[in-house]
């Protein structure tokens, strides 16, 4: 029987890792990810898993060890946040370039400077072009389930790309909430045995990892990564459907919450989707036609499906918890791209909010919806919660 436990987002991810039982977990502590590595280390010490946990001296080493372990043929996982991901950056690209199915939980936290431990998405958005699959999670339950789904997606023969699973630092990572932990046996069966693609330790069939392809072959390797991302787009749904049979929850590219007849829609990632739902429930009782499009899969980005979901909406606000300084913010940019081919499309309002953990209240969201319903949409970015 599945068990309802009180877990934080971090603990929920550690619980997923326990059930996945990876071969190797190299990790380095960083707020607010630390509780993942800490909780998992306890599982290792208690003998609940037979993972080789490597206490590395930095995140650069954590990802390097993941790359080594994964190339050797091990199922490797790690977790990080903010500066940790930034320090890892070089090897993050190596992992995807070598097509190693590593799964990493990123607990979103603002990048320095100025130093800040709280949530925004500048860390994971900073490596959205590094050929990692990116899945964003609203709550602890999703972070738990996405982590399980990620392993299957990464290891799929037609994909073989690393996957990042995001959740909001502190807001979900340190919030204690109801988490339905699924049966170990079912997850074990779902995950299955890892059959690596040409591992280094298969000494009867030796291969070279990381050769030097210059003008002659680098381009072709990148073309393969594009192809793998296209495959991931389809396979994400297949694996999601399989997981649905166990969890009874859906894993589409995005969640549409009361959008069917909506006039105004908010598009957002992670925990703010939850707060938006609460506001929608209240406003719907007052007869206001508002809805939410919560993006789950950010890489590969589901352009066509998003266009289809938004085509009949009159007004939409896209909320970004990071900026692309000097260009359209990451989520807004993708949503706007999605709508290009439509002849009839919603008017868009871009909003930037929550940088460095600045709170976003239900009132903020309600006010935004009210503005949208009035058709109050501007091509200027709105900064929610900023001290003007």
């Amino acid at each position: 029987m599945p068990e309802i436990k009180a877990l934080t987002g971090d603990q929920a991810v550690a619980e997923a890792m326990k059930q996945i039982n990876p071969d190797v977990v190299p990790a380095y502590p960083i707020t607010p990810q630390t509780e993942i590595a800490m909780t998992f280390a306890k599982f290792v010490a208690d003998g609940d898993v037979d993972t080789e946990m490597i206490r590395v001296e930095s995140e650069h080493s954590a990802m390097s060890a993941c790359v080594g372990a994964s190339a050797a043929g091990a199922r490797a996982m790690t977790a990080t946040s903010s500066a940790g991901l930034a320090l890892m950056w070089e090897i993050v690209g190596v992992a995807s370039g070598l097509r190693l199915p590593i799964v990493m939980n990123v607990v979103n936290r603002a990048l320095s400077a100025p130093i800040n431990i709280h949530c925004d998405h500048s860390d994971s958005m900073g490596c959205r072009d590094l050929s990692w699959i990116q899945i964003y999670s609203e709550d602890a339950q999703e972070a738990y389930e996405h982590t399980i789904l990620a392993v299957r997606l990464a290891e799929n023969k037609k994909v073989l790309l690393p996957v990042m699973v995001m959740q909001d630092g502190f807001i979900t990572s340190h919030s204690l909430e109801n988490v339905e932990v699924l049966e170990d046996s079912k997850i074990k069966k779902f995950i299955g045995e890892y059959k690596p693609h040409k591992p280094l330790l298969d000494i009867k069939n030796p291969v070279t990892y990381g050769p030097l392809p210059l003008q002659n072959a680098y381009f072709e390797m990148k073309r393969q990564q594009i192809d793998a991302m296209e495959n991931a787009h389809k396979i994400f749904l297949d694996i999601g459907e399989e997981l649905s049979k166990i969890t009874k929850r859906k894993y589409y590219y995005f969640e549409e919450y009361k959008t069917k007849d909506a006039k105004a829609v908010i598009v957002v990632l992670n925990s703010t989707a939850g707060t938006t739902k609460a506001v929608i429930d209240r406003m719907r009782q007052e007869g206001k036609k508002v809805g939410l499009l919560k993006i789950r899969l950010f890489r590969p980005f589901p352009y066509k499906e998003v266009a289809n979901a938004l085509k009949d909406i009159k007004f939409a606000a896209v909320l970004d918890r990071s900026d692309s300084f000097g260009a359209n913010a990451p989520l807004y940019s993708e949503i706007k791209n999605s709508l290009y081919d439509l002849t009839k499309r919603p008017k868009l309002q871009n909003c930037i909010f929550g940088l460095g953990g600045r709170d976003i209240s239900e009132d903020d969201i309600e006010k935004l919806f009210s503005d949208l319903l009035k058709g109050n949409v501007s091509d200027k970015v709105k900064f929610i919660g900023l001290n003007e």
Partner: protein
Amino acid sequence: MKDILEIRIHGRGGQGAKTASQFIVEAALDQGKYIKAFPEYGPERRGAPVAAFARISDKPIHTYAPITNPDIVLVIDNTLIGFVDVTKGLTNKGILIVNTCEESSKMKEKTKFKGNVYTVDATNISIKLLGKNLPNISMLGALVKIANNISLESLKNKIKEKFLKKIGEEKTEKTIESLIKGYDEVR
């Protein structure tokens, strides 16, 4: 009636405000309720003013917005009154529970709060029973009685589950006693 019961707990770092918020929601979860508990993260130091929050509901809780209008505020350390705005966001329908040996009328005067004020001498209870100033558990006893939707029994079980291995049977029994005393003596 709000769907979600929202609680804010004021204390000082090390007094167990966060632990109290977790115990109360975990006990509620055991009763089949939906819960969320989260502390206010900042530069935590022992002795610095801290706050912890809890949401309890019969329906799923989606919101991650900060709690700005709590239904109940628990003040574990009454020396905070005056320099921390403990009644912030409390409406007159709200409830304030303070750890103090003084009468609730005195607390009303001090906080200028117009709603219901309850007091319990949690510090005294914990010093008598546990030999230490660990008032958070007695405060939870008081909270359970006033909130009236979480059972004392599930909180007792939670304490047993959390403490038995750590501090042994005798101390666990004393801790549960301090919970019950808080429940009985709040006024």
